[in-house]
Every structure is written in C-alpha cells, then in structure tokens.
C-alpha cells in the first residue's frame, strides 16, 4: 500500500515539477477563465438581481471551460516523446497511473479555481470569504478531474484530441456542473445550509461514482 502511494506521489510530483517550470496549464487556464469572468462581468454588471440569477452560472462556465483547456494538456505531455509508453512499461497497476495523473489535474484545477473565485466575487461585489463556496469548488473540481483525467487519456490517442475532449467530457460532467451551479446560488445569496445540502449530496455521490468507474475503466482506455 505504501509503495502504491509512493508511485502515485511520484507521478503527481513529476507533473507538479513540470508544470512549475513550464506553467503551460495554469497560465492558459487562468487567462481563459479570467477573460470569461471579465466579459460576463461587464455584460451583466453587478446588480443584486443579476448576481442571484447569473453569477453562479458565470463562475462555473469559467471554471468548466477553463478546465477543459487544462485537461487537454494532462495526457498530451505523456504522448510527446512516447512517455506514455515509458509509464506503461512501469510495473504498476494502471489505476496507479490514473490516480497520479488525477492528483495533478485536481491540483491544477483547484489552484486556478482559488485564484479565479476571489476575482469573481470582487467583480460581483460579493463577500470574499465564503467557506461553503470553497467546499463546493473542492467537490466539483474533484468530479471534473475524475472524469476529465479519464477522457484526457482517451482523447490523447485520437487525431482531433482538442475537439474530442470537450465533446466527450462535457455531457458526462453535466450532473456536476448543474449541482455546482445550484449549490453555489444559495451560498452567494447568503441562504442557509439546507438550501444547498441536496446539491452537495449529489456532488459527493457523483464524485464517488466517477472515481470508482474511472479507476476501473482506465486500464481499458490506455491499453492498446
């Protein structure tokens, strides 16, 4: 068990180190998400009514579509120089590779979310400190990363991988997006926990389902 975690961490650390040096994923996702926020922010303004109506959707559009850009790179780096073959030659269960890559994509997406969200809150004149929103972001990002890592591995072997990933990923991740938007609404409006609880439960359920299914099918996705 300890060895398994060591290997998952080795993959995660390798991805972190690479990203820290290239900043390919973080910068591109961050710029895209910021642009979305700014465009929507200027389009809708920051009135109370508008905030309640569209702000949750704007945040999750920015994070979801920005996330797709980042997810495209998660396995693309392994495709170059046939590094995926190098990984596949390692004496590890395929699930170890999945969890190592998942840890990386989750961390990248979460880092972007925690930069973007305060900017979003400021743009819409909302309080910056919203711990409940942080919880929603963590749960939704986990769901995105769980599905996204799997489909990133699938798309990387296709010719039109940049198009293929959103086509595969977005329909499957709709329950997470809807739950995240619905749970974010009451948080931004200052509503009680009860209003978001059902959506949080749905998020948790989908996270578990996606993690289990993706772990089981990853082997079939990456094996020739």
């Amino acid at each position, binding site marked *: 068990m300890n060895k398994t975690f060591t290997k998952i961490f*080795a993959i995660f650390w390798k991805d972190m180190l690479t990203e820290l040096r290239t900043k390919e994923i973080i910068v591109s996702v961050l710029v895209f998400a910021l642009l979305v926020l700014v465009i929507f922010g200027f389009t809708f303004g920051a009135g109370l009514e508008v905030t309640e109506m569209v702000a949750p959707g704007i945040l999750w559009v920015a994070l979801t579509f920005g996330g797709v850009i980042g997810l495209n790179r998660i396995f693309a780096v392994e495709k170059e120089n046939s590094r995926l073959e190098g990984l596949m030659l*390692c004496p590890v269960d395929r699930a170890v590779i999945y969890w190592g890559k998942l840890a990386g994509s989750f961390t990248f997406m979460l880092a972007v979310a925690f930069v973007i969200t305060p900017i979003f809150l400021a743009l819409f004149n909302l309080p910056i400190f919203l711990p409940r929103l942080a919880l929603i972001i963590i749960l939704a990002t986990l769901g995105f990363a769980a599905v996204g890592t799997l489909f990133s591995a699938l798309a990387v072997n296709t010719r039109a991988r940049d198009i293929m990933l959103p086509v595969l990923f977005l329909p499957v991740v709709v329950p997470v997006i809807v739950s995240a938007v619905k749970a974010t609404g009451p948080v931004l409006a200052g509503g009680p926990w009860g209003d978001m609880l059902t959506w949080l439960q749905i998020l948790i359920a989908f996270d578990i389902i996606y993690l289990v299914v993706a772990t089981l099918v990853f082997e079939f996705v990456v094996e020739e």
Partner: protein
Amino acid sequence: MNKDIPVASTWAIEARGLEKSFGEHRALRGIDLKVTRNESLVIFGPNGAGKTTLLKILSTLVKPSAGSVWLDGIDIRDKSAQIRHKISLVSHQTFLYDNLTVFENLKFYGKMYDVADLEKRIKEVIAWVQLESRLHDRAGTLSRGLQQRASIARAVLHNPSILFLDEPDVGLDPHASAMVRDILGSINSGSRTVVMTTHNLERGLELGDSIVILDRGKVVYQATREAISEVNFRQIYDRYTETGR
C-alpha cells in the same frame, strides 16, 4: 494452451503463434521465437516488417491478436506487472521528460520500479553512460545522442534481465551512434538477454549472437551469428526481404 511453463524455463523469451492485426492490416502473421537466457538476438527487417510491433508485444505494451508470450517462463498475460520488473525498453523515443533534469527523470523512474538505494544506483548508471557532468541539466537541453545515453541509463536503472532495443541509434550522428553502440555492446556482458531491432546490418551483426529476419510479419530467416559472414548476410537479407525482390 500451456500457461504453466515453470519459471526455471531455459528460454528467456518464448513466443508462439504471435499474430497482430490493426484493422485489415496484419502486422504479424504467426511468429514463433525462442531466445535463451543472456543471448543477444538481433531482428532485421525492412520498414513495415513488424519489428516494432513484435517488440511492443514482447515488452507488454501491446496485446497480441493471437498467440502467447512467456518471459522467464511467465505468461505475460497473467502477471504483466511482475514481468515489467524484469524487462526494459530503449527505443528511438527516450521516454524522458524534457523539463526535468536527468537526475529527476531517473529518480522518477527509479521510484516507479522500486529501485533500492536509488541515488547510489543513479550514480552507477550515470557513470556507466558517462553522463555525470550533465546529471543536473534538463533532459530537453541535451543533444539527441546524450538524451539516448540518458535513456539507456533509465532503461537499466532497475537492472532488468531482459532488454528490448528498438532501433536505438535512429537519428543519431555517427559519433553519438558509435558511443551508443559501445554502451550497448557492453550492456549484456553475459548477464542480460537483449533483443534488438535494426535496419543497420553491420551494427546488428556486431551485437547479435543470433539473427532473425522479419518480412511482412513473418520470420523468414533465422541463424546464429557464427553461421554467417557480413558479406553473405547482405545477400541473404536482400534475398529474403522486399529489397531483394
């Protein structure tokens, strides 16, 4: 089908009836191959003969459409993770991460293979490929020849008993190629089974104990190194492959 060949099998590699199809295209058409322990086998063949496909199957990267492979007596379908501890692959792709240093690359792969006393082992293999002065340089900044030496260090880090070499000198200049050839020449030194594919007849004959020619997915010629000279091997190669037709 016999899956229970004992581990003490005399064959380091045994393949029976290997077939591989990609859609309509049949890349391998019934390959039977036996390689004894610590032997160097060189597989020759023109482009599209199936050399890389065969090596990918033997190294567990690709599953055959039909047939079986045993490495050190173990069926690769049953215990592929266990098998991967014993094998390694060097190809013209280095599998190295450009933005990590050579040391970080080796440390990463060492952890994936549970290499004991990893830093000491990295120093050993790096000294062997004569890359000590570039150990802390990013892999992407090395020349193609130096990257290939780092790739060889990566491949032998976990001391595999079977080493697959898929055209390891492709794209190297003559000097780098000679350096890699020297390293590869000392790689088995009687304690490792080596299977190499190449187009280069002279180089292949230098390194091989036995020779196989593959054409259109079939073994068309097989001999020991002693049985052939360089001159007649070129004639044999031309006769058995498309270039000779």
